Each structure stands twice: as C-alpha cells, then as structure tokens.
C-alpha cells in the first residue's frame, strides 16, 4: 500500500466483492488525494437544478442523463470496477464507461438517488468524476465519425459488389458473353455505383466546389472531375449500350480515398480530446461575497469585479487579484512548478490553480474566454490543426500538379478530338484516372498516420503534425532534469542531526508537524515514517514553515531563519542549509534539532536511453535550473558530457537559440516546470505525461508512457517515417512519369488506368503500413 487512502480503497473494493480488480488490472492506479470537506460541499451543489441545466438531460419523469469525465482510469480493470460499483447503486439505471475516451454516460432516477451520491461513490473507490457538457466538441466529433463510417460502409460494400461484376465483365469480354447478360450486368453496376457516387463521394464534390469558389485548386478538384466524368460517361455508355464502363474504378477510387480520410480523422479527434479535459480544471461553483454575505453561484455567473472567497483546497474559479489573505497556491497544473507558490495581496491568481493553505479573497479580473486557461485551450486547438510542412508542401505541389494535369488532359483531349474523335473521351479519362494524385496525396498522410498509430500504442502521443518529420532531422536532444530524467517526486535523502535527539524521533516529530500540509516536502517526510504521531495547535506560515505542539512541546519546521525565531532571538545559526537548499530544518525552543535534505530519483532506464540516443548520432545535453552538484551527479551517472546548472528559462532559451544559430535542429524534452517557452522555442519538443497541461500544450509530442527508452524508439520511427514518405513521393513521381506518356498516346485503356492508379496507391499505403510494426523492434 502506498498510502492510507489506498488501503481504504482496497478495503472498499474487497468488501464489495470486487476483488477481481486486483486480478485483472494491468497497470497500477495513480495515487489519490484526500478530499477536503469543501470539495464534498461543492459536489452537493451538483444536485441543484440550475447548475444541472448545463450538463444534464432530463427525460420522462425524474430520469436524468449526464456525461462524466472519469479521472484515474489507467486500464480496463478500472472500467470494470467503476461500472460494477456504480451500477450496483440503487437508482442508477445505466452507467457505461468508454475505455478509449475515459468518458462515462450515466442515467439515474432522481427520486431514488442524487447525482452527488453517485459522484461520491465513484471517489470512494479512488476515481474522480466531473460532469461535463458534451454539447460542444464531443457531439460534433461523434457525428463526424458516424457520418464518415456510414459513407465508408456504403462505398465499401458497393465497391465489393461492383468489382465482382467487373471481373465477370472483363473475363466475359475475352470469352464472349451473352449480350443480354452483359447489358444486365452493366445496369446492375450502374445501380450499385449510384449510391456510392451520390452519397459517399458527396464530400469530395462539396469540397471541390468550395475550392473552386475560393479560386483554388485542391486535391478534390481532379478527384471530383475523375469520379463525376467517369460516372457520367459510364452511365451514358450503359443507357446507350455502347462504349466502356468504369464503375469499378469509380467505386474503388472513392473507397480508398474515404478510408484514408477516416484514419486521418481518428488521429485528429484523439488529439482534440486533450483540450476538452483542460476545461474541467475550473470549478463549477464559486463563493461570491455580496452585500448579503457569501453565496454559492455557478462560475459562469461570475463577472469581472466580483469578490470571491477561495477556501483552502478549492480551485480558483477565474483569473483575478488577491485582496485579502496570504496563502500558497499550487500552480503545477498550469506551470508545472512542483513547489507551491506563495501569493500575497495584490498578486495575480490564475483560474484552475489550487489554494493550498489559508482562505483568500480575490477580485475577479477576467472570466470565460479571457482567462489564461482558455488561452491555453485555444493554443492547443490551434496546434492541433497545424499540418506537417511536408504535407503542406505536398498540398502546394498538388495545386500546381492539378493545374498542370487539367491543362494536359485538355490538350490531349483536343489533340485526340482532331485525330481520332471516337477514342478522345477514353484517352482523356485514362489520363485523368491514371494521373490521379491519389498516390501523391496519400504518400504523406498514410505514412504519418501509420507511424503516429504505432507510436501511440507505445504511449508516445503526437500532437502536432510536423513533429515526426522534425524529430527525424534532430541533431541535439536537450533534457530538463527534474521530472524528466528524474521522477520529479522528492524523497528524503539524508538527515543531519544537529541536536541531541536521534534520527527516528526527529523524523517522527517532523512528520507529525507536516501531516496536514500539501507541500511535496511534507509528503516526502510523511512517507518516511511508519506511523504518524498527533500534533496540535498547528500554525502554517506560507513560504516559511509550520509550528505546532507534539507531546506538549512546541516545535517549528521550515526554513532556518523561521525555525530560529522559536528560540526567541534571530541569532545567526550555523549555516547547515547552505549546501542543501532543498532541505528543511527542525527545531524546538532550545535550538536546532535536525536538517532534512531531499532528492529526486533517476527514472528507470535513464542511462540506457541516453546511450541509445547518443548511439543514434544525437548530441545529448542537460540544462537544469537545479544546483551544480545535483546536475553534475546526474550528468556523470548518465554519461552526458555537456550540462549546465542553475539555468533560468531565459538561459535555456539562449542556449537553444545559440545551437539553432549553429544550424542545429534541437529536440527539447521537458516536463513543463517553467519549460513551456523553451519547449515552444525548440524545433521539436516532447513533454512527459506526468508533466503539466501547459507543457503538453506547448509540446509537439507527449510521452504518456513515461518510459524514457521510448524516446529513442520515437526517433527511430520518425526517421523511418521520413524515409517512407520520400520513397512514396519518389514512387508516385516515377509512376506518373511512366504512365502519363503511355496514357496520352492512347496505350492505356481506362480500366488499365484504374488498376494502375489503384495499385500505385496500394503500393504507397502498404509501404506506409510497414511503419506500424515499429513498436516491436
């Protein structure tokens, strides 16, 4: 058991007969934090009708339905546990968890159970559920996905049928076929192709029309011309019972294109869900201080100028300034700063951060769209809509390619019209089909999608398109230390005894004083003792330390100057802390007792990963804000020759700019402890999964697995991806150079052109699919 919380949860799970969880789970759950009473009070507010309006759908009677975001789901066993536990509650009609998105749909009878009880039951087994408003993006995504699947299904089934008939028709053309049967098969093909063209291919026509209206030439223009003209010509041939039909080419073409776009859409949606989760950082309600004292209002009702009370343990509801109070604020979710920051009256508070120590009164300055948090969400949205520059290049080239292609087709049509009018249409169609930029337009997305998929299975999420391409060209890898190469969690490293007490009793005293604190040092101290002693009269002074009584004696723990204050005189203490700025001092009224120092452990496989990266020809550097000795020790252990200590973000930025001026392509790996600007400045950046949302937002890739060896694998995969993209583009080019003259001179019948086009696309896709196996390397 890692903490008492886990023990309680395990007890609840086993008592509930759900012990199978421990048999089936495949990953361990993240640690749970104790809930403060205020958070419980807030949950009760979710029962209010006015608040439920935004996320609850009312159905017949008192039946209600809501969507929840579930936090803490790490494996299928968590899903199973949640479903079994919640469904067993009386009054819950339906509870289904989506394992891919970590969203849950809940239906309950409001007469028999309240929403807050359900939320509480979920947190009793160690997960957190937040209601959320699925009306926005989520709904759009779901509709988009369903529409794409419907189009794909119609195109796929239509294609299979038409191809089957096409085989009969082609072989019949050689063997001699009953003309009545031939006509019949052609009519059936027409019937089967009609829904494919009218329904499935509709999106190509609309987007081509949009392109034309904006006077642009996109990929969809020749696609539409090819599909439309081939279909119309074939329909004409069928009706008049003359000439060739190309229904097989039309359906196959539509299906392949739709399949490619469907895969691309899936990757985009997954990335988009990350933004949705950020929104829930803001609390749903706030305590507004009005003329009649305090009242609970929904956060959406807050306006700039309102005065709001933020209790310890609560999240700050909007951006604003402190007017009364002094406390430490946990900004780690936004800035990644792992130690809480002290905030005084007049200081800025950012919405979504957590107040740790004492009550604060703040004046709201901006709400809703104006807050820092929504700026980050917008940043994330924008980042996700960016395209890789290779794809942009392909698009630009495609524009010219399409224009040239249309001109060529027109010229060829004119020439043939002059010389052999009967064959003019067939030849022109061959040109259009054979040169379809299918292979060209699939070359990059197919490779990027396959590689992204393989990396996602490894736990490396690619959030920006250019990431793979740039990572492949990287020459330098720069690491941040804390939280990246190390675990980012403090552990007690050494105890230096100053007074006459022994190590055990000092630790016991320290833990007793710190047990109520949220500070990382407090967690480290409490984790180092077996049982906690009771302490009373605890007074915390933010940024300095804690004072309290244990067994009737007063003690202080914190920075040296503050602890010395208990001895009544601010005399100069022997500077124990000088060498250990991470440490705290424990003292009583007589003098100092002990000094505790803390350290951070290296992540597993850190040395091997660095060696692998160096083996791939990358320069590895370490830039850290930490003190020199700590950085030196880590660098030596990992075999990193270049390192810098005590780097401010601007120092890191300067170093990266310097490298970039020398022509280096820099990959930055950080966890967002003030790394965000540096991550943004590097050509490609990777954030650790445990890092902050801000880091995730400014990083191109997120290492969700937290496994450093996956870094080297990501580099290898990205290099292979770039190689595959080049092969694909080269193949598409060679294919066109060979096929176009043949088609223009009338050597290629339209059915041969369709097979040529399809097989060239197939080669491209299959080549790209080789990337999917990267994970097992």
């Amino acid at each position: 058991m890692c903490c008492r919380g886990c023990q309680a949860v395990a007890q609840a799970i086993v008592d509930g007969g759900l012990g199978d969880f421990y048999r089936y789970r495949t990953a361990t759950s993240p640690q749970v934090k104790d809930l403060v009473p205020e958070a419980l009070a807030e949950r009760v507010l979710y029962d209010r009708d006015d608040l439920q309006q935004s996320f609850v759908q009312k159905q017949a009677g008192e039946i209600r339905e809501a969507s929840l975001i579930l936090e803490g789901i790490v494996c299928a066993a968590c899903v199973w546990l949640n479903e079994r536990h919640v469904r067993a509650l009386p009054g819950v009609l339906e509870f289904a968890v989506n394992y891919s998105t970590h969203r849950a749909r809940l239906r309950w009878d409001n007469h028999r159970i309240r929403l807050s009880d359900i939320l509480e039951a979920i947190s009793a087994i160690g997960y957190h559920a937040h209601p959320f408003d699925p009306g926005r993006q989520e709904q759009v995504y779901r509709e988009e996905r369903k529409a794409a699947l419907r189009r794909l299904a119609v195109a796929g089934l239509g294609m299979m049928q038409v191809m089957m008939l096409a085989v009969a028709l082609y072989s019949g053309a050689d063997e001699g076929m009953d003309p009545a049967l031939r006509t019949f098969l052609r009519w059936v093909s027409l019937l089967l192709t009609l829904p494919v063209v009218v329904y499935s291919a509709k999106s190509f026509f609309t987007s081509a029309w949009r392109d034309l209206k904006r006077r642009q030439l996109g990929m969809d223009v020749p696609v539409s011309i090819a599909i439309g003209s081939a279909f119309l010509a074939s329909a004409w041939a069928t009706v008049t019972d003359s000439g060739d039909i190309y229904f097989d080419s039309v359906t196959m073409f539509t299906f392949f294109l739709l399949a490619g776009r469907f895969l691309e859409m899936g990757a985009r949606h997954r990335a988009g869900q990350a933004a949705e989760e950020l929104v829930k950082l803001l609390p749903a309600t706030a305590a507004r201080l009005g003329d009649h004292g305090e009242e609970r209002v929904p956060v959406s009702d807050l306006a700039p100028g309102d005065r709001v009370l933020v209790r310890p343990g609560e999240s700050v509801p909007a951006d604003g300034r402190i007017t009364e109070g002094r406390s430490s604020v946990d900004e780690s979710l936004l800035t990644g700063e792992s130690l809480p920051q002290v905030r005084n009256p007049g200081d800025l508070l950012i919405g979504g951060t957590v107040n740790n120590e004492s009550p604060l009164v703040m004046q709201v300055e901006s709400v809703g769209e104006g807050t820092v948090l929504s700026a980050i969400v917008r940043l994330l949205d924008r980042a996700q809509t960016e395209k890789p520059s290779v794809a942009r290049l392909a698009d630009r080239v495609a524009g010219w390619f399409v224009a040239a292609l249309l001109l060529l087709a027109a010229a060829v049509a004119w020439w043939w019209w002059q010389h052999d009018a009967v064959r003019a249409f067939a030849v022109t169609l061959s040109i259009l089909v054979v040169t379809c930029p299918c292979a060209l337009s699939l070359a990059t997305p197919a490779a990027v999608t396959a590689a992204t998929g393989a990396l996602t299975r490894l736990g490396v999420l690619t959030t920006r398109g250019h990431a793979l391409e740039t990572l492949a060209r990287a020459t330098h890898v720069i690491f941040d230390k804390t939280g990246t190469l190390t675990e980012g969690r403090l552990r007690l490293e050494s105890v230096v005894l100053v007074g006459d007490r022994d190590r055990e009793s000092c630790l016991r005293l320290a833990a007793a004083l710190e047990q109520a604190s949220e500070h990382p040092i407090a967690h480290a101290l409490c984790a180092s003792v077996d049982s906690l002693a009771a302490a009373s009269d605890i007074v915390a002074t933010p940024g300095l330390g804690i004072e309290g009584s244990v067994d009737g004696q007063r003690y202080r723990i914190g920075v040296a100057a503050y602890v010395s204050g208990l001895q009544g005189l601010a005399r100069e203490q022997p500077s124990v802390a000088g060498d250990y700025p991470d440490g705290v001092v424990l003292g009583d009224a007589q003098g100092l007792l002990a000094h505790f120092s803390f350290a951070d452990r290296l992540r597993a496989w850190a040395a091997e990963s660095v060696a692998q990266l160096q083996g791939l020809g990358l320069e590895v550097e370490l830039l850290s804000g930490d003190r020199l000795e700590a950085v030196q020790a880590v660098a030596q252990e990992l075999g990193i020759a270049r390192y810098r200590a005590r780097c401010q973000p601007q120092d890191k930025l300067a170093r990266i700019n310097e490298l970039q001026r020398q022509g280096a392509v820099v990959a930055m790996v950080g966890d967002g402890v003030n790394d965000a600007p540096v991550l943004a400045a590097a050509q490609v950046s990777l954030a650790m999964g445990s890092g902050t949302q801000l880091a995730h937002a400014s990083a191109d890739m997120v290492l969700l697995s937290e496994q450093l060896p996956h870094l080297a694998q990501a580099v290898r995969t990205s290099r292979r991806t770039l190689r595959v993209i080049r092969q694909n583009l080269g193949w598409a080019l060679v294919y066109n150079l060979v096929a176009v003259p043949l088609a223009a001179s009338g050597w290629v019948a339209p059915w041969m052109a369709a097979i040529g086009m399809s097989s060239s696309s197939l080669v491209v896709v299959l080549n790209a699919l080789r990337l999917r196996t990267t994970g097992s390397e």
Partner: protein
Amino acid sequence: MDILFLLIPISLIIMGIAIWVFLWAIRSGQFEDLEGPAHRILMDDDDPMIPRKPQLKDDDE
C-alpha cells in the same frame, strides 16, 4: 447462365440488408469504443461461475 438474372438481384437484396445492419450498428454506437470490449470480455458476468465464499455478494452497496 440464366440463373444469374435471379442470383444477382438476390445478392443486391443481401447487400441492402448488409448496409442496413451496418448503418444500424453505427447508429447504435457499436463503433464508439473499439478498445474496451476486447478487455471487457475477460471479466464480465461470469462471477457466479467462480466459487466464492457464500456470504459475499456483488451488489451489497
């Protein structure tokens, strides 16, 4: 080969049914979670088959 005039229309009807089934599956959300069910089948409602101490119940919450 005249039988083809009957078999092909039948195949069209079967295809229509296939499309209808597919559309139903999409509408009812069968494609929304493609990962969960693979895990879920490992630990679903077969608990009563596993011998247990009699006083334990699954839904005593």
